[in-house]
């Protein structure tokens, strides 16, 4: 611009942690916060007047829910119609009338009447307990209507939008129409928050932990640049064009031919998929997964009150192994405890479950379950031996290994069952520090960066108030990873990464520089990581990793790596 403007310099960039490399633009729609509970102070209106207000509000909410149901169709329609009936429920109306007769406000009467039904449902537990959330949603809508404020929850402005929220809960994302979401921006949450995981799974452009996003308003145009971790407000036409071009270039990169993971100098870095059930195999292969780097077996166990039988397990494992003939498939034995409690494995109350009887510790205490799982895995491998394309290359690993003795124990028991390649997950700093001795027994190590970060920084990864500590870029975490990488090189044994860190395209380069020999991630992250690796040689990767290691903190490590990556790239800058 040629005009000289005399005004205060405006801050148009706000920062957070970008997820992936995407860029998007669009109008902001904010997710409104849950309403504060109404007060039980006496109403200034008569009971009849309050009653009329409530009747109007429940009818309006019911009609709106019915309309949304008609638009949504399918299962959502049933849920929304049921919610509409809840709003106008006659028993609820009786409960509300009783409270209004006591001189309370419509808001409080609705709140308290819904709460009484909610408590009944919660007390019944199970499936009915889950319906309590539907009830809460209806109550919030009616109360919002009575107050004349927008209903809380996922916005629906009728056009594609950039969703700005505190953080997304699983219940919110279930209601989210992903086709309408151009990008996600959250004020809280770190790179392993539910929002970040969703963004990676669905390839949505996202920036988490943008504290200043509180100031964004509905309808405001923004550019969300996940690669830079920057939200730009009041973008210029030129900025919008540039973002548009980058988004288009990235879309064509995603459509680029799928090649095996490798660095610019040809050093192979197999790119593998993290899977939670055999059903994801086809998608993973379509996105170019060269095998499975982490197959979580919890899905077989979490929905049952007792352990699944060997036959049930064998069937699932056979399905998985058949999908990857001739390819590497790393299966992790049951990782229960902490955030994934299983009553039949450990029903003791623990003050600190993340530090409790979990992972291999729990399996060692209930060795039958481990032995059955290994039996089923060996049988499934045997069954697929004659499958076309050859059998999968089955590797089995133990979760939460903290000591050399545990590594020795697990590899010995796995070999007893004919598992040829048995390794351990490195998620505890003790096993990273002693990786050289652990790898004397284990055939390979696979680093779980989420737990490794949680334990290194002593910050509960599920606790929002310490989410800022949960950043795998922290140099303390990187140094531990280097220990494992060095140990792997010394023993000539593979060191994989199977945490969220591997899905971060720049961090992926750093991890290879630290000695990782394969990377496993949510399949949707494969294209970005593949493209990022191709930009750097192994020497570049080591230099970039050194730059990150030399930083004092996670943010500065990321910045240092970004700067080093720009200087040490084996492709001409665009």
């Amino acid at each position, binding site marked *: 611009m040629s005009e000289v403007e005399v005004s205060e310099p405006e801050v148009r960039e706000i920062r957070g942690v970008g997820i992936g490399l995407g860029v998007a633009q669009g109008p902001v729609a904010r997710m409104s916060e849950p309403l504060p509970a109404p007060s039980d102070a006496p109403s200034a209106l008569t009971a009849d007047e309050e009653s009329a207000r409530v009747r109007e509000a429940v009818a309006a909410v019911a009609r709106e829910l019915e309309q949304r149901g008609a638009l949504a169709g399918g299962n959502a329609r*049933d849920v929304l*119609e*049921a919610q509409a*009936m*809840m709003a106008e*429920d*006659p*028993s*609820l109306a009786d409960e509300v009338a009783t409270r209004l007769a006591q001189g309370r406000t419509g808001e409080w009467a609705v709140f308290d009447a819904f709460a009484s*039904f909610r408590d*009944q*449902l919660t007390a*019944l537990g199970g*499936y*009915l307990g889950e*319906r309590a959330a539907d*009830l809460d949603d209806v109550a919030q809508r009616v109360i919002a209507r009575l107050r004349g404020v927008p209903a809380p929850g996922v916005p629906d402005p009728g056009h594609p939008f950039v969703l700005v929220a505190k953080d997304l809960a699983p219940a919110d994302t279930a209601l989210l129409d992903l086709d309408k979401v151009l990008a996600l921006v959250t004020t809280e949450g770190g790179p392993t928050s539910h929002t970040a995981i969703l963004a990676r799974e669905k390839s949505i452009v996202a920036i988490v932990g943008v504290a200043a996003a509180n100031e964004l308003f509905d309808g405001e145009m923004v550019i969300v640049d996940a690669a830079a971790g920057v939200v730009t407000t009041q973008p210029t036409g030129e900025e919008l064009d540039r973002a548009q071009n980058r988004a288009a270039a990235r879309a064509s990169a995603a459509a680029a031919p799928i090649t095996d993971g490798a660095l610019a100098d040809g050093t192979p870095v197999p790119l593998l998929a993290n899977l939670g059930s055999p059903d994801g195999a086809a998608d993973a292969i379509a996105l170019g997964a060269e095998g499975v780097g982490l197959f979580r077996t919890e899905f077989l166990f979490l929905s049952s009150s007792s352990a699944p039988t060997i036959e049930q397990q064998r069937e699932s494992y056979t399905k998985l192994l058949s999908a990857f003939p001739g390819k590497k498939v790393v299966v992790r034995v049951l990782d229960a405890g902490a955030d994934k409690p299983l009553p039949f494995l450990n029903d003791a109350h623990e003050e600190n479950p993340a530090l409790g009887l979990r992972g291999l510790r729990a399996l060692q205490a209930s060795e039958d379950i481990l032995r059955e799982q290994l039996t089923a895995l060996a049988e499934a491998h045997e069954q697929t031996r004659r499958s076309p394309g050859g059998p999968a290359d089955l590797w089995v690993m133990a979760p939460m290994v903290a000591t050399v003795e545990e590594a020795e124990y697990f590899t010995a028991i796995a070999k007893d069952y004919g598992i040829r390649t048995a390794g351990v997950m490195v998620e505890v700093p003790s096993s990273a520090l002693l990786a050289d001795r652990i790898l004397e027994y284990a055939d390979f190590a696979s680093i779980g960066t989420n737990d490794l970060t949680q334990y290194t920084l002593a910050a509960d990864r599920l606790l929002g108030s310490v989410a800022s500590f949960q950043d795998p870029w922290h140099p303390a975490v990187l140094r531990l990873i280097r220990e494992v990488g060095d140990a792997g090189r010394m023993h000539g044994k593979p060191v994989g990464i199977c945490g969220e860190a591997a899905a971060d395209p720049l961090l992926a380069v750093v991890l290879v520089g630290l000695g990782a020999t394969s990377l496993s991630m949510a399949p949707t992250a494969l294209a970005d990581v593949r493209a990022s690796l191709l930009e750097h040689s192994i020497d570049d990767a080591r230099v970039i990793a050194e730059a990150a290691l030399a930083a004092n903190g996670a943010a500065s490590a990321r910045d240092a790596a970004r700067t080093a990556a720009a200087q040490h790239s084996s492709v001409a800058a665009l």
Partner: protein
Amino acid sequence: MPTTSRTVRIGSAHGLHARPAKLFAQAAKDAGIPITVSKGAGSPVNAASILGVIALGVEQGDYVTLIADGEGAEAVLDTLAELLTTDHDAE
């Protein structure tokens, strides 16, 4: 008007919640006469109340008793009984 009652066994695999509860409460509401439903020997609730019906916690194989009072009560209970004995999730 005579009071009519009917005891039936629940056919839906998901018991009387989710979709079956909605269909049942809607039909009871549309009938336009007072109808109650109770599980086993429990106390009756308004059959047109989806919240009341869900809160009964009725599972497949449970017995419920319907009581209707008013014009066409027999026919209304025939329809509702049919609804309850059908497994809607098997459709």
